[in-house]
Every structure is written in C-alpha cells, then in structure tokens.
C-alpha cells in the first residue's frame, strides 16, 4: 500500500534520515522503534511533507507517487499525519476540529459515517463536541487528533508518539482504538517510545538507528529478540520476561 524508498532528510550538515525504505500494508500496524534522535519524527514529518526531503525519495501510495506534493496535498491523497504534540486547533471546538478533518475532498463523501465512527471509537468525544479542545486533557486531545485524521478517510495513518504524556489508562484506551482502526482496514505507521505496548498491538516493526533502518521483522520476533529487548524494552540480556 505505502511504499517508501530512498528517503533522506538533512538539517544543514546533519543527515537525520539516511536512505530509508519501508512498507506499510492495508490493515496492518507497523511499529517504528528507535532511540531519541534516531530519526523517527523526521521520518514521519518527511513522509507528511512537513520537512524538506532530499531529492531521489519515493513515497508511493497504492501506486501513486506523493514525493512531489506539498504538505497540504498529502492528506488529500490518503496519508494522514498525527504529529508529535498532536497539532490540534486548541481554540476551536471538538466538532470544528473533526469537521476540518474532512476538509480534503476524500473526506467529504462519507463525512457523516466517519463522524459517527470517530465518536464510537472515542465515546468521550461524543459528550464534549462543543468544548474548546485547549481545555481538554492530553489524552482527550490525542483522541481529537486521531479522530480528526480519521475524518479524512485515510488509507494510511501516521502517528508520532501518540502515548507521550498520557496516563496508563488513556494509553490503553488509545492503543485499543488503534487496533480497531487497523481492523477496519486502515494501515498504521506508529512511532512510539512505548515499545512494549506498541509491539503488543503491532503486526510488524522496523528498527531505526542513526537515521538508518537497521532491522525489521514481525512484532512477535522483534519482541523476542534479546537485542531489541535490551535496547527498547528495558530487559537485560538473559533475564526472563
């Protein structure tokens, strides 16, 4: 579905992302693991068109090349990004944020259905439709951000650290929702510091180190790999899970 190849990002002299290639299929959750500064956020921003890509990158969605498109056209092509820090319109209400999610044409046809779907996915939002998003908790704002992205009827959802700063309960609720989004047929590319929980719901994963992909495999295999466990799951070599 989504096929990325030769993606590099440079900030001045610093090469933040070096020739990255990856795939996300229909209805699967792909987890991107990596330490701070490994280039995870740069990857999602580059895919979403929020930072400049080095020439030669290819970002194909269902066969259509997106690498040449400006940021505001990417979501209309079917790639919706939920950035780190959520990027919601805090002064606007939940309802208005969700309505703006359907601003791209691809979100208009099934707008009413998607609006219902988002409220079923996050019942908390149903009661707060007319509340200004800025006055809500971090977890609720994250729900608005994910819901807004879903309103554009994306083929692929890109999520950057969605669990950051959320309570354990909120976190669990959010990951359950992501699994349901996957089950509805949407592909999810998930960048997370919470490796344990994301590998638990993920189907496949990649390891990112110093801007390069250094490993990949099924979520189960990655979760069982001693090196991965040591680096990202906080489990020492040889220790039982």
């Amino acid at each position, binding site marked *: 579905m989504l096929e990325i190849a030769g993606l590099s990002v440079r900030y001045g002299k610093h090469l933040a992302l070096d020739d990255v290639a990856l795939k996300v299929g229909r209805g699967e959750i792909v987890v991107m693991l990596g330490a701070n500064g490994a280039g995870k956020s740069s990857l999602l921003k580059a895919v979403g068109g929020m930072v400049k890509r080095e020439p030669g990158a290819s970002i194909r969605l269902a066969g259509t090349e997106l690498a040449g498109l400006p940021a505001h056209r*990417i979501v209309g092509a079917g790639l919706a990004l939920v950035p780190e820090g959520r990027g919601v319109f*805090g002064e*606007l209400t939940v309802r208005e944020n969700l309505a703006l999610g359907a601003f791209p044409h691809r979100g208009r046809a099934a707008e009413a259905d998607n609006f219902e779907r988002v409220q079923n996915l996050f019942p908390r939002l149903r009661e707060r439709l007319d509340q200004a998003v800025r006055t809500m908790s971090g977890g609720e704002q994250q729900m608005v951000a994910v819901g807004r992205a879903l309103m554009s009827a994306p083929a692929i959802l890109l999520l950057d650290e969605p669990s950051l700063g959320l309570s354990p309960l909120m976190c669990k609720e959010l990951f359950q929702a992501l699994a349901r989004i996957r089950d509805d047929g949407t592909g999810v590319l998930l960048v997370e510091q919470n490796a344990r929980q994301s590998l638990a719901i993920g189907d496949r994963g990649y390891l990112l180190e110093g801007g390069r992909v250094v490993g990949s495999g099924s979520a189960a295999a990655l979760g069982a790999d001693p090196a991965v466990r040591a680096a990202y799951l906080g489990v020492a070599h040889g220790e039982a899970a």
Partner: protein
Amino acid sequence: MLIVDVLLAGFTLGGMYALIAMGLTLQYGVARIMNLSYGEVLVMSAFGTWFAVTRLDWNPVAVLLASLPLGYLASWLIYRVLMMPLVRRSGAGPALEVDSILATFGLLFLLQGVLLLAFGGNYYSYSYLSQPVDILGSQVAANRLVVLGFAAAIGLGLYLLLTRSRLGTAVRAVAVAPRFAPLVGIDVWRLSAIAFGIGGALVAGGGTLLSMFLPFSATMGVVFAMKALVVVIMGGVGNLLGCLVAGLMLGFAETLVARFVDPGLTLAVNFALFLLVLLLRPAGLFGRVAR
C-alpha cells in the same frame, strides 16, 4: 430624546468602526499582513461610490452590492500579486510583518496620490436619504439608520460565514495555528488570500456606507486605518467579538465626549481608552497571551 440621540449616534459610529476593524483583523490575524493602506481602500471605495451616485445616477445601496465583491477582488489581487513574493521570501517567519508594513506603507502613498490627483484635497459628499426620521421623539437622518442596518447585516453575515461554514472554520484554523493547517489539507496561502480578500470586501463596503452619511476627503484614510488598528488591538488581534465590543466602546466614547464635553477631544478620548485597555489587558479585551 437625548438618550435615543446618543444611542443611535453611538451605535452607528461604533458599528462602522467595528465593521472596518473586522476586515483589518482578518487581514492581520489570518493573512499576517499589517495593511497600512487599509484606510486608502476605504476612501477609494467612498470616492467610487460618490462617482457612481453623482455621475452615473446609481442608488448607493446598489453601489454597496457592487463594492463588496469589487473590494474582495481588488484585495485578493493585492495579496496574490504584491504580497505573495514577500510571503514566499519570509517562509513563515517574522520578517513578513516588517516587509508587509513597508510594502503597504508604499501602497498607501501610491493610492493616496492617485486620489489627490483625481479629486484634490477637498471634502466630498452627496445627499442620500438625509430627511429626518422621528424615533421616540428624536430626529435622526434616515441614511444613518440605513448605514446601521447594513453594518449589522454585514457583520452578522461575516460571523455566520466564519462559524457555520467549513471554509470559515478553515479561516479560523489558519488564524489560530497556521503550522497545523496543512495537516487537514488546508492550503494556507490560498486561505490567506481569501481572508485578505474578505477583509477588502468589508472595508470597501465600509467606504460605501461611510459616504452615505459623512463627508470624506482623499487624505482621511490614515485616520480610519489608525482607528481600525486601535479597535483591533483593543479587542485582541484576530477576534471578531473583540472588534465589535471595542468598536462600539470607541463609537460611544466619541459620541458622548463630542456631545457633552468638546468635539475637539474625541481623538484624545480614543487614545486614553486605548491606553487604559492596554494597561489592564495587554493582549486586548478578548486576546489571549501567546504561549
């Protein structure tokens, strides 16, 4: 009755200020252009109306219906042709504010020069519905009631557009968080041009309304731009409700002072009120301090 006199005069003047300031707050709060030539557009529209009414025999209300779309088109063009190079060059940085102030300062003198060349420095006016109407024992010129009615209708229309339509919601999204707007597929430059155009429609409509009840001259644009800016800052940049409240405050303050103290003090009272608001609420009446 004195109180009806004061109320009507205050609402008419204040409503005009609010209307003109709403256009400026759209241009500054959404398109991020501090348009110093704003008042000149108002005066050009007033002269255009004068020409259509006295030479072409148009009804001023018909001119109003024409000046709204014309003002939109002219301002949209100003943004696309004159401002776009500055917007591109600045990225999303603070340089745009300085650049746009300099560019529109130049535009101010250009437009004013054209007006002076065409009309000279004298005051112009025409007579429209100037016969008095009796309201609760007060005599008031009918044209002021027409102006008040249209100012309210245009303001209400703008409010509905911004709060009830998807395009309007997108305009507000660009006002509060331009960085995030592309996430939902909003083309910030396209929306900025639209907001700048709507601002132009409001000020052109304001110019036509103004010409219905006040004499005007080629050089008075600056005064209105300044008052609009005062209202915008008093209300809180980008806030329509702030414009309405601050505009009415200013209109009533001027009316009361002119009536009971001395007409020469109106400008002084304007700025005293402005200073007082800024001392108490530095971000404006409805403004939020930027985080």
